[in-house]
């Protein structure tokens, strides 16, 4: 490898979960700098997400786009990342200006990269600039060097593969050996050709004797990485991971970790049993309650869904005898994998590969395309990973174009082939075209928001129709908000989750709020007031996990038995108490749960300010497609007519139903639209926002964020 720039450094010691250092790398200028942070920085901007938000707020402008040299690609763990004594501490976030949304995206990912980056001396890595030559960055805490090097060239297949290139590089920099002292992030050729490229987090799994991958999947972080001319980053540290955070109260950390592990051990096997089944177990429950996003979210169930239920993958694919997990000390260990899966389709047909997954989201993406073939799920999973593209955005985008084709908005001439729901051949062809930037893949690689505009232009020109009118139709079923595709849950029957998707600052990814079951099934949020309160509380606590380097599944998907005796069981407060104890023992703070919520709210408001600056921060940007709130077309209404008619009487306030089904469908849509607007009003009020969805000055000032830039921004919006 040709070294383009190298510095020597002395790794800072982690103390109380932090190093107080950011590594800044400018690939355009080939500069490497270590920024020492004031010790109170972390008090205001907590951990991973806080560091990323502050960097983006300070270092970018409203003109910054994903491929602008000044765009910053931030990777950061957080004070609670890297503690094998506590479960779920391998997470880090990738934050940047997204090619999908043109505003801030953060995507959290497991693996060893975040913990090792911290052990190598850095709370965060911030990459700016664009490299003239394709580059890699090597952060070597053992050799005490940081290097920008020209990306090595192996063979075409390896160089193109997001998995293959990172795997090879990890070996090359360690004398041909895998080691869990090294980890990498990488992006593949799919990220060069689409807006929804992922960043892989690659780590060595000692049990499987191979490199495994987790993904920062949402919002095109990999596309940003490749736009910077960056193919991979490797970090190394041989420091012990045990007690690597040097917590203030080691015993306290152990006690909190032991308590949470006991809850998981006791409760998970009697609940979802994620430790055995992984997240694919969700498919059956989603199908049962009409939430499985079949045929581009048209139908929540299918008679074929059972072909994709968890037991199919457990019986036929997952390695059952190997304890899994993406970081040491996790006893939930949901990161399932399969070995020796023979590919039967596509350019790598005949090869036997290892597959990390599938997760529920991959299964959901495949049913979204109307496909119910588990072998295709495995192959779709592997190809998306090897190309380095997001399984969710890929599936939702293909599904959108499938529906455009079936509803007559696109023809074979537009696409080059019949792109129909359920066609494995067509879905596979489109997938490979997206990754290669070929044919119709050049359109599909742009995602749904840009795809809608392309279809509207084509259709309007062909039929001499109004592009605006065509666009209004496409808006009904183009499943995106703010430019990001929905994650894999149907929200039609849960008003709270419609808000969970619509208000989500990054776009409709469920990590801010997943309230479907609490609202639709458990019926714990019967009033608008309760839904609004949940839409204020859950995003604050859920995104705190992203700020601190933690996985949240242990809290949200394993209900502590003690929660049943609390006033609000859905908040699972007895488990959250263990997290508060863990934080205080690590950093030496004396925070309460409310203090944590306040810390998180500061970041929430800062992200909202960035959204405002980027033109994605007002009520208009929180509006969701009709299909996210109601059956958009008559066929969807017909599929559950009895249910919808009952709903109109019970929830819609309709005393006498209209005579014709078409009138009832129309009335249903009116009621659902009205309800969503009422929800907007209630949630904005609850959050201290104006009716236009803009934070009030008092709340911005309360969190110490009313600087000159924020003042000007709020002046512009009239807040």
């Amino acid at each position, binding site marked *: 490898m040709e070294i383009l720039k190298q510095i020597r450094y002395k790794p800072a010691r982690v103390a109380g979960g932090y190093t107080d250092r950011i590594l800044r790398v400018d690939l355009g200028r080939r500069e490497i700098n270590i920024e020492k942070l004031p010790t109170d920085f972390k008090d205001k901007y907590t951990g991973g997400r806080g560091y990323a938000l502050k960097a983006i707020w300070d270092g970018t402008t409203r003109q910054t786009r994903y491929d602008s040299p000044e765009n910053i690609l931030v990777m950061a763990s957080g004070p609670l990342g890297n503690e094998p004594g506590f479960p779920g501490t391998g997470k880090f976030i990738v934050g940047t200006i997204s090619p999908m949304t043109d505003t801030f995206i953060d995507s959290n990912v497991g693996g060893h990269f975040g913990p090792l980056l911290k052990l190598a001396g850095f709370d965060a890595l911030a990459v700016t600039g664009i490299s003239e030559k394709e580059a890699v960055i090597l952060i070597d805490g053992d050799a005490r060097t940081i290097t920008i090097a020209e990306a090595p060239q192996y063979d075409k297949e390896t160089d193109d593969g997001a998995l293959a290139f990172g795997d090879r590089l990890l070996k090359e920099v360690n004398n041909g050996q895998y080691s869990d002292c090294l980890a990498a992030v990488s992006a593949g050729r799919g990220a060069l050709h689409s807006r929804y490229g992922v960043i892989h987090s690659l780590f060595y799994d000692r049990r499987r004797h191979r490199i495994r991958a987790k993904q920062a999947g949402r919002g095109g972080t990999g596309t940003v990485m490749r736009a910077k001319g960056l193919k991979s980053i490797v970090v190394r540290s041989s420091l012990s991971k045990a007690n690597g955070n040097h917590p203030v109260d080691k015993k306290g950390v152990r006690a909190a970790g032991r308590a949470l592990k006991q809850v998981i051990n006791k409760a998970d*096997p*009697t*609940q*979802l*049993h994620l430790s*055995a*089944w992984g*997240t694919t*177990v*969700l498919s*059956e*429950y989603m199908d*049962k*309650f*009409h939430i499985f996003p079949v045929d581009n979210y048209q139908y929540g169930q299918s008679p074929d869904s059972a072909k994709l239920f*968890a*037991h199919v993958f457990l019986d036929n694919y997952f390695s059952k005898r190997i304890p899994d997990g993406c970081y040491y000390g996790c006893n939930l260990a949901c990161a399932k994998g399969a070995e020796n899966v023979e590919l039967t389709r596509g350019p790598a047909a005949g090869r036997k590969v290892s597959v990390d997954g599938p*997760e*529920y*989201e991959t299964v959901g993406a495949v049913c979204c395309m109307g496909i119910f073939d588990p072998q295709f799920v495995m192959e779709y999973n592997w190809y998306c990973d090897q190309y380095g593209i997001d399984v969710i955005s890929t599936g939702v985008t293909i599904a959108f174009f499938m529906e455009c084709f079936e509803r007559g908005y696109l023809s074979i001439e537009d696409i080059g082939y019949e792109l129909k729901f359920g066609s494995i051949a067509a879905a596979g062809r489109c997938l490979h075209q997206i990754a290669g930037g070929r044919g119709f893949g050049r359109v599909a690689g742009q995602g749904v928001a840009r795809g809608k505009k392309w279809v509207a232009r084509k259709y309007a020109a062909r039929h001499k129709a109004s592009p605006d009118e065509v666009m209004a139709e496409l808006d009904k079923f183009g499943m995106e908000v703010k430019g990001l595709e929905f994650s894999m*849950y149907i929200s039609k029957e849960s008003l709270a989750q419609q808000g969970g998707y619509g208000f989500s600052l990054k776009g409709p990814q*469920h*990590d801010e709020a*997943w309230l*479907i*079951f*609490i609202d639709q*099934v*458990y*019926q714990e949020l019967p009033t608008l007031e309760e839904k609004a309160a949940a839409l204020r509380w859950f995003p604050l606590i859920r995104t705190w996990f992203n700020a601190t380097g933690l996985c949240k*599944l242990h809290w*949200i*998907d*394993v*209900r502590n*038995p003690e929660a*049943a005796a609390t006033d609000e069981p*859905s908040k*699972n407060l007895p488990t959250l108490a263990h997290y508060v104890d863990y934080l205080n023992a690590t950093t030496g703070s004396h925070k309460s749960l409310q203090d944590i919520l306040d810390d998180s709210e500061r970041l929430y408001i800062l992200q909202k300010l960035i959204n405002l600056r980027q033109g994605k921060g007002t009520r208009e940007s929180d509006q969701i497609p009709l299909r996210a709130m109601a059956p958009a077309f008559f066929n969807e209404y017909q599929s559950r007519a009895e249910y919808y008619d009952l709903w109109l009487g019970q929830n819609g306030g309709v005393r006498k139903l209209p005579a014709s089904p078409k009138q009832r469908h129309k009335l249903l849509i009116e009621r659902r639209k009205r309800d969503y607007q009422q929800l907007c009003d209630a949630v904005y009020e609850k959050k201290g926002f104006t009716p236009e969805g803009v934070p009030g000055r008092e709340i911005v000032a309360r969190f110490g964020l009313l600087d000159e830039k924020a003042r000007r921004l709020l002046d512009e919006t009239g807040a």
Partner: protein
Amino acid sequence: MNENMRVKIEFLGTQRTLAGADSIETPITGKTTVNDALKYVIDKYPQLKLDKDTALVVVNQQLASRDQILKENDIISFVPFISGG
């Protein structure tokens, strides 16, 4: 009243493996409650480890109260706590 009234109890997810069945049918009377059905399943399938105090019981896809009287052909299932990823 139909003396041969029955309801169906469905096993979802890991419950199916533990119970060794997709579903079972069981007779009810006009006074059988959700709580009766839950007790029946706890006794018959202890391996499910359903908690009599905290289990969420769903009848025909709607959360049911423990004292709800079951009707013929009701479909009963037990739902774990799910809060998304």
